[in-house]
């Protein structure tokens, strides 16, 4: 099959900033690749690393977690927790040899529509080059 590989990306976006950012991108008609499947969560602090692991388990090639910029979290410190958790989690992903580009934690405000689109475009490009996530078992 010669069809180019199109990665599936799961986006876990906080309702107040990143999701609003995605909305802004839509409203202002900024194009970005359709590879992202968005799940809205109330806060990046709600995202359990288990969600990310499960996303990979069920076929995601990459996962993007995005929330409000530091200091802007609607619940004050949710994103600080997210940052701490995912720093640890990313270390473990690396330990098991999962490419670091498959997981991203980003801060996007509600007005950063264009930036959000660029972020998704960049991640999609990287994952296209990386190929599908497979555990080859000999």
């Amino acid at each position, binding site marked *: 099959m010669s069809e180019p590989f199109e990665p599936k990306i799961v986006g876990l976006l906080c309702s107040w900033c990143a999701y609003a950012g995605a909305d802004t991108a839509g409203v202002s008609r900024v194009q970005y690749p359709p590879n992202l499947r968005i799940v809205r969560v109330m806060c990046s602090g709600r995202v359990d690393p288990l969600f990310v692991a499960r996303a990979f*388990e069920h076929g995601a090639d990459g996962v993007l977690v995005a929330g409000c910029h530091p200091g802007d979290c609607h619940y004050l410190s949710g994103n600080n927790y997210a940052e701490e958790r995912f720093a640890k989690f990313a270390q473990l992903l690396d330990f098991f040899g999962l490419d670091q580009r498959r997981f991203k934690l980003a801060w996007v405000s509600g007005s950063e529509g264009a930036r959000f689109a660029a972020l998704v475009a960049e991640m999609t490009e990287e994952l296209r080059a990386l190929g599908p996530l497979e555990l*080859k078992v000999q």
Partner: protein
Amino acid sequence: MTTSLETQLQRRAHDLLAEGVVELFLGYRQGSNPLRVAPFVARTPLETAKLVWNAVCVPNLAGTLAKHAGQRIGVALKACDAQSVRELLKLNQLERSRLYLIGIGCAGMADPEAITKAAPGRVTGLAEDGPDLVITTADDVVRRERGTLLLTKCATCIGMPTDFCDEWLGEVPPTPPAIPAERFAAVQALATLAPPERLAFWSEHLSRCTLCYACQTVCPLCFCKECALTLERDHPRRQAREPMTIFAYHLMRAYHLADRCTGCDECSRVCPEDIPLNLICRKLEQDRSQV
């Protein structure tokens, strides 16, 4: 002749029960063969005669101890088990005032697999003689230096501050001033590989995983009543042994244990597929030692 640790332990356990200091005393009893011991709870002074202390007291008693949380219980601990108990106390799974901890000077525990390799055939007896272990099999007697038969973890034992326990029996092990670097040699080697090679390494090992969850069951620090990671026996993803399902389990298990794993190596000991889970544990320990 000095009294053996076993006799000393039996006496202390006997007295603690007789004086009513504790209601139960947890230690080991002889298992189905000379290379096996099993956790054992003595409830009366008389029962303490069944307690054993030998070179293969491998299982970590901390998990069994936690199952008896709430009762006044005495327990015999080697340093690595004491580490687990300390962690359980930190996480409020045990109450210090209800415990009576007897630390036991540990010269390293022998790996039953190493013993069987050194002395093939059915082992009928195991004795300590100075620095040596004397293994009796059906048709041979083999003498080996204890140090050559130890569990991997014992080579870089990190000990335990003695004041943690209520009393000590036997020689107080010198606590190494710093964590010996060799403890992390294997994880260090893994870290130098390129990520795809690391992924291949783990894919190969984890492809053997049957999701039996023995590693989770045995871990003294895995104490949630209901585990978010384990799947029911008849769950299709468990039955199919999907590589990504296995991967997600191990990734999340590591994440959940990141702050608490004490490196007792029980998980890799019980894994029927010999998956080097202890590498994951050393990695967690290394990460913690670096912050």
